[in-house]
């Protein structure tokens, strides 16, 4: 099995769903839906995001996308997690700063609408909204 310490957005082109093993602390591509997992929160689904200003990003949602997401930009991940607001806002600020995004305040990028980009049977794509509030 292919194991990776970290994945990039390019890895989602090869496989749209990756499993993170919290014990091994490594990612592996989820080839079969029958692969045993501990929780849906261990799965990362390829997704795209749109800010209220219409700015688009690529990245991933973890689980159902109600707790954590990752945005890929400037060759790295910026992550947001509802339980870690202070850290998430700093990640968002870094995204704005590193990408030269023109917004008054980094929090103006929220909420982010997302759509999964799995496009593979037997998965069904879904959409939602992520906010830190």
């Amino acid at each position: 099995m292919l194991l990776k310490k970290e994945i990039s957005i390019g890895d989602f082109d090869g496989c749209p769903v990756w499993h993170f093993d919290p014990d091994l602390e490594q990612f592996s591509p989820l080839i079969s839906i029958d692969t045993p997992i501990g929780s849906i929160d261990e799965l990362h689904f390829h997704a795209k995001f749109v800010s209220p200003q219409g700015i688009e990003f690529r990245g991933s949602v973890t689980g159902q996308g109600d707790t954590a997401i990752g945005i890929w930009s400037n060759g790295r991940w910026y992550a947001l997690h509802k339980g870690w607001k202070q850290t998430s806002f700093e990640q968002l600020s870094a995204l704005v700063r590193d990408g030269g995004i023109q917004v008054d305040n980094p929090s103006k990028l929220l909420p982010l609408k997302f759509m999964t980009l799995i496009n593979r049977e037997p998965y069904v794509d879904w959409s939602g909204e992520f906010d830190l509030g």
Partner: protein
Amino acid sequence: MADAFGNAIGQSIVGQMMATEGEKRTAQIASNLAQETQQANSQINSDFARSQQEFSDQIASQFDASVSRDLDQFAAQQTERSIIGAAEAGFNTPRIQALAIPTSVQAAINDAAALNITQTSGGFDFKSASMALRQQQDTAKRSAVQSAVESGNYSEAVRLASESLRANDPIGYALANQTQDAPSAVTRALGGLRLVGGAIDVGIGTALSATGVGAYVGVPLAAYGADQYVTGSRSLVTGLGADSAFVQAGEYAGLSPFAAQALELVTGLGLNVGGTAASAARVSSRTGTESLLDLSSVTDISPGLYRVDPTQLRFSQHVASPNFSSGGTISDLVAELRAGKSVDDVRGGPLRVIIEDGKAFSLDNRRLVAFNAARVESVPIQVLSRSDETVSTLLRNPTRFAPIAGEGQYIAIAPAAEQSAAWQLLRQNGLIR
């Protein structure tokens, strides 16, 4: 002739009578001096014992307050622990191998046991424990100062002079020039100031002696302070001026009294300026990796390397495996640390730490469990920037970044096969977000 003989006899008798009278007066003065010396000695011993008791009481009171706070924390943690236990039974969910608790209460209990403190009905006799600890520290300090002093010729001379004065004539009464000076309240007050200054110098000097470069100033400063302390105590008790061992040594070496006193003044100033500079250097070095950062008194910390008490760190995960991915187990590491392995030699480098809402969470949970279990006193940490990419990797993984009750005071240790069930269990009970 007979008259002359008689006169001679008479003069001799009168002379003898006068001599006897003189001896009687001398003996009386000596007796008075001895009595006064004894009274003064008794007073100084009594004062010293009282100040020691006051200091012990103060330490004991601080210790009790700290323990009381820890016990409250422990009670809260035990409640949380019961919740998990009840849920475990009710939901028939996996067995959590152990619940690692980084409590200072445990450390306090262990400390008490190490000091052979008996347990009373109301708990441990912490006052006796703290006094015993104080006694241990005193002994250790004395021996440290002694060995430090023994390594330097300069300080050795002063120390020996002070020790001999203390041993043979604790307050130096017999050496005071009582025929020249009358006891004076001003001299007594100045002696008191000298005593306090000497004590401060001993304190600063002793503290600096434990450091590297600081020892070059610390050792002589401590010795100088001890000399001033002894001399000051003599003047305080007798109300008489007294020369320090430093001045006596200077005079013995051929200096005039004025020159010896001037040299003492210059040396004292130099050592105190040096001591202040060395102290300042130690304070400024607190931002480096060698100083111990108190996480309980900071709200945010700049990214960088620090050393902290590991019990002040929180777990970022709710569960961790008892095995390290690089091989070995938490128990193995605990055993190695207890056997003397240095925390700085443990594989993995400094513990990575992130600060959220003023709380310091370790990203390296298994090592933190081991450090706490082994009662390591300080560990190196690397505080990461919240915008760091390493942090984003963890943030995207809720199962990797979910402290129990949002506080991270606990972590469940469970094998990989049972971790997902532990996750469900804790989540169902609202202990993780």
